[in-house]
């Protein structure tokens, strides 16, 4: 019976070519625009470390007070001052923790005829590698001893290892950063979390993979300034030491808290720290601290670009109009066949069978529209970089899941659109149609 109705559907569709083409085009365009924008949204709204995102927390401590011009009312600054970041790092209240900041440093190749190249680099503590589940191809992280000893060691990524060490195991060899030699202790395997949650404040979440990590303690010794944002509400004064003593914010602090109980304890201690600063006279306001896990933090930092949300809303609304349009066209198409329905009913077809016939016909339209939509989605993927940065455009692609979703959405949408027209078709009174002929 299914194949018979399917054939009937195809025949009916080919009979009213223009009407059919219109429906297929409508569904195709509607679903394609929704899928392309959804692909961008999915890429930017994803959780980069789902297995651990509820255990990794960014800490914020309000060191500016309520009367600053910089932060949204009531919110602490999005980064930490050196004073607060170091206090949390040294307090060691979490099993693992790290301060981090981006470095704008360059690799100087051994070959004298090659130009230095800038690398995407961060200063972190040894815990960072285990906290963020950074995979290693060769070697491993440096140790807490290296942190304490302010050692000139580095972890580099696979890409950089390919470029300067031709892909060999470079553990133990030296890499020249800014004119200083660093011993390679580990080579990361491909690691490119998107959004790059480690440093959302400075990257807005989308950037090239990190190529080099060096110890925070060593970076400070080298007086490497941050390559990211700095923000001051009062003049820090001249010189590096004044900079470290200032209330300027430029650091991010991550803590790994394995259980909700640990998180609650940590939050209390964080508040306790702020209260202590208030008692000491440094803060002239009550404690105002935050602890955001990865998902919260990405949300708080508005990592999903406005454009991705707006275009998703607009294209889903567009799809909605397409569906309303399809309902109208199906209604016209089905009701034109009132006579045919009347004859079929008079010859013994039940309402059920009328339902089956017309729903299958609609599903056929949906599937055809879906195939067209798939084609248009594939084309649309190439247009993403017209609207979004290359870093975001590279994250949106047509994968098997999206192919299935496109086809499924098309068929379901066509079926939903056909519910009312089919119901009307099933209501046709056989006697009326026969009589009028």
């Amino acid at each position, binding site marked *: 019976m299914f194949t018979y109705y399917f054939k009937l559907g195809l025949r009916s569709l080919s009979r009213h070519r223009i009407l059919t083409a*219109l429906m297929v085009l*409508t569904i195709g*365009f509607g679903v394609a625009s929704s899928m392309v924008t959804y692909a961008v949204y999915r890429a930017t709204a994803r959780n980069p470390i789902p297995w651990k995102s509820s255990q990794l927390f960014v800490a914020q401590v309000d060191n500016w007070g309520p*009367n600053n*011009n910089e932060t949204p009312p009531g919110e602490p600054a999005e980064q930490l001052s050196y004073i607060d970041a170091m206090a949390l790092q040294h307090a060691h209240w979490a099993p693992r923790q790290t301060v981090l900041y981006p470095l*704008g*440093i*360059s690799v*100087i190749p051994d070959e004298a005829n090659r*130009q*230095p*190249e*800038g690398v995407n680099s961060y200063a972190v503590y040894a815990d960072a590698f285990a906290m963020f589940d950074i995979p290693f191809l060769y070697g491993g992280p440096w140790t807490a001893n290296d942190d304490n000893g302010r050692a000139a060691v580095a972890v580099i990524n696979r890409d950089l290892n390919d470029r300067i060490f031709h892909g060999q195991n470079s553990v133990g060899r030296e890499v020249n950063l*800014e*004119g200083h030699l660093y011993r390679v202790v580990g080579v990361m395997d491909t690691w490119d979390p998107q959004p790059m949650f480690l440093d959302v404040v400075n990257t807005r979440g989308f950037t090239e993979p990190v190529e080099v990590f060096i110890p925070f303690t060593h970076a400070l010794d080298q*007086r*490497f*300034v941050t390559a990211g944002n*700095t923000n*001051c*509400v*009062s*003049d*820090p004064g*001249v*010189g590096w030491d*004044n*900079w470290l003593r200032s209330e*300027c914010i430029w650091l991010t602090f991550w803590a790994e808290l394995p259980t909700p109980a640990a998180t609650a304890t940590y939050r209390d201690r964080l508040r306790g720290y702020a209260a202590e600063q208030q008692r000491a006279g440094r803060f002239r306001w009550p404690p105002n601290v935050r602890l955001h896990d990865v998902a919260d933090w990405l949300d708080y930092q508005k990592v999903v*670009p*406005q*454009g991705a*949300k*707006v*275009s998703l*809303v*607009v294209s889903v*609304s*567009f799809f*909605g*109009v*397409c569906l*309303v*349009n399809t*309902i*109208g*066209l199906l*209604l*016209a198409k089905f*009701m*034109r066949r009132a006579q045919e329905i009347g004859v079929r009913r008079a010859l013994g077809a039940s309402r059920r069978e009328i339902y089956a016939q017309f729903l299958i016909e609609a599903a056929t339209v949906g599937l055809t529209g879906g195939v067209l939509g798939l084609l248009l989605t594939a084309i649309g993927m190439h247009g993403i970089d*017209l*609207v*979004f*940065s*290359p870093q975001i455009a590279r994250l949106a692609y047509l994968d098997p899941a999206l192919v299935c979703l496109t086809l499924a959405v098309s068929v379901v949408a066509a079926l939903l659109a056909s519910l*009312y027209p089919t119901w*009307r078709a099933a209501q046709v009174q056989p006697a009326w149609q026969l009589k*009028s*002929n």
Partner: protein
Amino acid sequence: MDIQPIISALRRHKAGTILIVLQIALTLAIVCNALSIIRTNMERMASPTGIVEENLLTVMNTWVGSTDGKVLAPLIRTDLETLRSLPGVEDATVMNSFPLRGGGWSTGVRLDNSKEHWLFEAGMYASDDHALATLGVHLVAGRNFRPEEIVDGSDFNTLVIPPVAIVTKAMADRLFPDGSALGKTVYLNTGKDAPPTIIIGIIDRLHVPWSAAFADTWAEDVAIVPARLTNRYGDYLIRTRPGMLDRMVREAPAALVKAHRERVFPPHGGVRTFDQVREDAYRTDRGMAVVMGVVSLALLLITGAGIVGLTSFWVGQRRAQIGVRRALGARRRDILLYFLTENFLITLAGVAIGIVLCGVLNVWMAVNFEVSHVPLAYMGAGILLLLTLGQAATLNPAMRASRVSPVEATRPA
């Protein structure tokens, strides 16, 4: 024309009528919001930078090796001499950032440094006495910096703001609406101990480093202070002689590398003509405008097609009635007018609901996505567009209806 019969006829076609009304309403809601987004983006893209954008080259330079200002200051001086001595170069300057670059310095501006709260936020450029000539901006009052006024400083965080500054006319007027800004004192830094700065020059216009929406309200509030920042990052702006831009894109970076090897130009955006800077800065705005335009067009086409489809169906259904009317003396144009009026009424209903939906969608988007409000004129344009579309889409089926012969009245439906 009596609309009573039309309304009674529509009552018999509730479903189809509701569908068209709904479709028109949704289309209007989306199209007027899309137009509003297009307008906002176009306005932002059209906002002038104040500089002469032709024959301007930008080079983002990162020093490698030393971050010591004492080492970098002479290197930067040599670089500027190298650039200015190139045959294709008219003038060159070093800045901490430049218009539309994205990333730069801003500060709260105050007239009274005993108050912590500032009046407004302004973009800050640090540059030298060649800045105005290189950028091609014009003084409308006062004077340029003198070479001896240029100070060396590491970065804006630690820079002691110099005692003189040049500000844009927009910023001058915002501080002193009576036009008396020249020679007045402002505070371009935070804190109670911020040093005073005297406005020595006013330029007609200069854009902040940012092209994003957050700076829309202060895009032209800019101050230039006479400082060469000697940290790892600095941007060279190079005004080339006419016709020499393409050559300088290659030769200027090469000359810099020849003068000192230990430097990096970022692979993306390190060396760009200003046309490319503009292109990159407004990529998203332009792209969104194009997408919104395409979506609006597609929507109108689909809605138009939907109206054609349903009206054709109605005409087909009513051939007998049309025949009767014709037989009873209705002229062709009466039939034509009937269908056009019917569509007009349906569209009017759709538009009425659409206005409400447009407002609701706009408020929701404004709250969630910082989209600006739809101007009334855009709603008006959307309404006119849909009424015209409705009439145009109905025309063909209505013409066919008008050609129904009175004989049809005698045939069974």
